[in-house]
């Protein structure tokens, strides 16, 4: 897949989606299928699905610039109680850090948005950070990976 270090653990799924808007729904469905039976249910499963969809959207739009021939790679592993989803695009050398999680966090401010002083958009990374137990971003040459971790069993619902 990529030169980015793979998480240790048991691989549950590895697949790629074309960089076309809407394919984040394909990614979230396949991740949900892969983690079925791993102990992640209810609200926490819904949170992981939202985080996967948002991270895949970012990879398609900002990382691979909506070029369908460039894939977004998705790898799902289980390492003890942790479900880890790694989403990799080819935007490592051109993507603005604030759009990928690699730079300082820009917290969306709804009051500023309603006042027209901030774009209505910009919720993606904010949602990801609030949906999962941990988020890590790494870049290695052209490869840009966002790694989402969700603990099974012990997390708060």
């Amino acid at each position: 897949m990529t030169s980015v270090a793979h998480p240790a653990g048991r691989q549950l799924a590895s697949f790629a989606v074309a960089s076309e808007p809407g394919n984040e729904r394909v990614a979230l469905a396949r991740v949900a299928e892969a983690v079925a039976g791993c102990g992640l249910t209810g609200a926490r499963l819904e949170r992981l699905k939202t985080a996967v969809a948002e991270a895949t959207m970012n990879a398609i739009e900002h990382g691979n610039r909506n070029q369908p021939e460039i894939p977004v790679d998705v790898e799902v592993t289980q390492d003890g109680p942790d479900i880890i989803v790694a989403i990799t695009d080819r935007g490592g050398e051109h993507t603005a850090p604030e759009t990928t999680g690699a730079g300082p966090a820009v917290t969306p401010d709804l009051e500023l948005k309603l006042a027209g002083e901030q774009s209505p958009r910009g919720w993606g990374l904010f949602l990801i950070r609030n949906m999962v137990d941990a988020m890590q971003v790494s870049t290695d040459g052209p490869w840009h990976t966002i790694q989402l971790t969700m603990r099974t069993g012990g997390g708060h619902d």
Partner: protein
Amino acid sequence: MTKRVCAAAVHAVDGTAVIELTGEVDGSAAAVLNAAYQQAIADGTAQTVVLDFARVDYINSTGIALIVSVLAQARAQRRKVVASGLSEHYREIFDITRLSDFIEVFGDLNTALADAGSLREG
């Protein structure tokens, strides 16, 4: 996976405008949602607009941005926006984004309409 394109049905109930959304509220819903809002306020009488999400199965960050845009327009026009029919997950997202500080959330459309009616009568 088959995409369920966003659609909107607009109607009025006792002076309250209702936008019943179906499908996916994402970037492709922009034209539908904006047109629905303009239709909902066209006669100028509605002081409250209900966004009903009972038949919506997906909202992403771009969809949240569209809802923010509708809310911004409504506030500029001194109209109230309320929501109904959100799943527990999307209620949580409304809380995290603070949308629920500005959009009162009701369990279902009838409850939202009852509240709007009681406010009008009060």
